[in-house]
């Protein structure tokens, strides 16, 4: 999608030795602080009534916000494989679901008592379970074309879905996994009815994973992924272990997707076959495309747009909102490159072209 992602370093960063340039590219920018600031402000807004003023929408929508964060994390995991390594996948829902069931089962059999139902340990278990499956299936995506990859990942997701539906003794079948009770987060905060804890917990974990991915894609490892995406043959020719890299990133992406699934199971206290269903995989892929692949933020922005749009449209026309998603998707593919981030970047470049920066402003 974003062939230019490796080369679109800001103009000021193109001078100086390579190491400095890479460091410059990895610097946190003001709009990133703004982004996470807004996310945190959404959580803080629940305090607003206590301070004497009201924010009409947000407090009641806290569960929705947590879900956006979780879906954003899932989209982030896809962005790692799709946006950076160029691996097309239609089966990320499998890892999400495995994570959800792993965390759900741990919490259920821990029966609300730490150590087993400790949320953080649950997430670790969710991530590990998903990454084991991810590692095992990563060998399947190494060969073949995009089409073969799509079909293999889809096939794996369908098999997992089938397993979840059939292994009733473990997963509860179509009824879902009931009675998922996590103990207190870090032994301090209990999951409450209004989703305060859930939101801050989801925000914290999502930010942690995001921070890790951000470090990763700006590391030599991340640059090698972009090289493989650009041209796997040449990357191999200059001595990159292409297959090993792809296996690593696929497994890692499965881990993050598993963590996202675990988060959803813990915060909603429920795991159902819906979490492995095909539409999870498709939706999360759409989120990345909505937002723009290859920028890490694309998935988060896409998840927000997607989920808010879903919430908004379902209120107007329940069950027909798919129609509008389809329309948006078709228009996006036909007319827009790189989603919302692509639009923003094009707009900012136009702005910069119109207003040349003062000389010496960027030193």
């Amino acid at each position, binding site marked *: 999608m974003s062939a230019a992602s490796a080369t679109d370093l800001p103009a000021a960063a193109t001078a100086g030795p390579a190491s400095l340039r890479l460091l410059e590219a990895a610097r946190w920018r003001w709009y990133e602080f703004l982004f996470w600031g807004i996310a945190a402000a959404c959580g803080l807004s629940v305090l607003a009534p206590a301070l004497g003023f009201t924010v009409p929408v947000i407090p009641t929508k806290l569960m929705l916000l947590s879900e956006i964060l979780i879906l954003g994390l899932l989209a982030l995991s896809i962005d790692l494989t799709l946006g950076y390594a160029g691996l097309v996948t239609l089966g990320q829902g499998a890892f999400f679901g495995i994570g959800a069931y792993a965390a759900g089962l741990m919490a259920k059999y821990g029966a609300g008592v730490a150590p087993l139902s400790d949320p953080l340990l649950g997430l670790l278990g969710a991530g590990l379970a998903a990454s084991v499956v991810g590692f095992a299936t990563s060998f399947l995506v190494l060969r073949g074309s995009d*089409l073969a990859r799509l079909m293999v990942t889809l*096939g794996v997701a369908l098999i997992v879905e089938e397993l979840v539906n059939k292994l009733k003794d473990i997963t509860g079948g179509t009824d879902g996994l009931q009675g998922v009770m996590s103990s207190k987060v870090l032994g301090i905060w209990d999951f409450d009815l209004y989703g305060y804890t859930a939101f801050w917990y989801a925000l914290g974990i999502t930010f942690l994973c995001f921070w890790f991915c951000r470090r990763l894609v700006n590391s030599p490892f991340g640059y090698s992924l972009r090289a493989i995406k650009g041209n796997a043959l040449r990357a191999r020719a200059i001595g990159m272990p292409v297959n090993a890299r792809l296996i690593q990133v696929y497994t890692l992406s499965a881990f993050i997707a598993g963590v996202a699934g675990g988060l959803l199971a813990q915060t909603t206290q429920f795991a159902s076959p819906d979490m492995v269903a095909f539409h999870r995989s498709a939706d999360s892929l759409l989120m990345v*495309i909505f937002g723009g692949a290859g920028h890490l933020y694309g998935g988060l922005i896409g998840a927000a747009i997607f989920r808010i749009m879903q919430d908004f449209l379902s209120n107007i026309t329940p069950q027909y909102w*798919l129609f509008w998603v389809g329309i948006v998707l078709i228009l996006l593919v036909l007319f827009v490159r790189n989603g919302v981030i692509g639009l923003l970047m094009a707009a900012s470049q136009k702005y910069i072209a119109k207003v040349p920066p003062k000389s010496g402003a960027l030193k």
Partner: protein
Amino acid sequence: MLTILFDGVAYGMLLFVLSVGLCVTLGLMNFINLAHGAFAMAGGYLTVVMMNWYGISFYWCLPAAFIVSAVLGVVLERTLYSRLYDKTHLDQVLFSIGLIFVATAAVDYAMGASQQIINLPDHLNGRFEFLGASIGVYRLFVIVICGLLTVGLQFVIGRTRFGSRLRASVDDGRVARGLGIDVTFIFALTFAFGSGLAGLGGALGASILSMDPTFPLKYMIYFLIVIAVGGTTTITGPFFASILLGVADVAGKYFVPSIGGFIIYSIMVLVLIFRPEGLFTRSVRR
């Protein structure tokens, strides 16, 4: 036992008619049209509307389904699909998923989410015994129609001038273009014909397959399996793949219902691993 085989073959034949268009267009233009099932759904719903609302005979519905789906196909091909040929596979997949969503929601809006049921003519219902197998008349009808279509297709592709141009375009589009073959025109025609066949398959399958708004998504995986196993360079490959899939699916559901779709998904993944080009393809290296 024979009954299962028979039902499986009927089911497989139906799958072949439904998916052959997709196989050819994929091989021809390297275009992944996941929304192929939407055309089948169009044919199926047209049949439902014509029969249940206007009381038109089932036999008129079949050609009508073919023509309407084909026209729908050529309109969409010229207006939307043709813009996507030079885009990446991912874009094509997303586009066709979008199309599936739109079709699903539109049909849901127009016809409701419930499964549609048509009443076949009386003389197509019923079963009879033959060599110890219980044979449904309608399934026999489906096999005959699909068999005729298959023979016809094989003849057109193997023996006519159009067929040889089509094969040349599938084998190497660039060279075919260089030889003065109008690949774009051939593709539009093939796309329309494939969509029409899908519509016909939908009409035939309206009473066997469950016709509801999720149809394109539900059968997408079957089409993909046919392609994965059959390959995209011939039509005999998808044919055998469809029969195999039909028999395996019917037998699997009959003998071991508890594992459901597990078998066919596993087969698909295994075939993709060991024979990424398909089971029945000539080993062509490009």
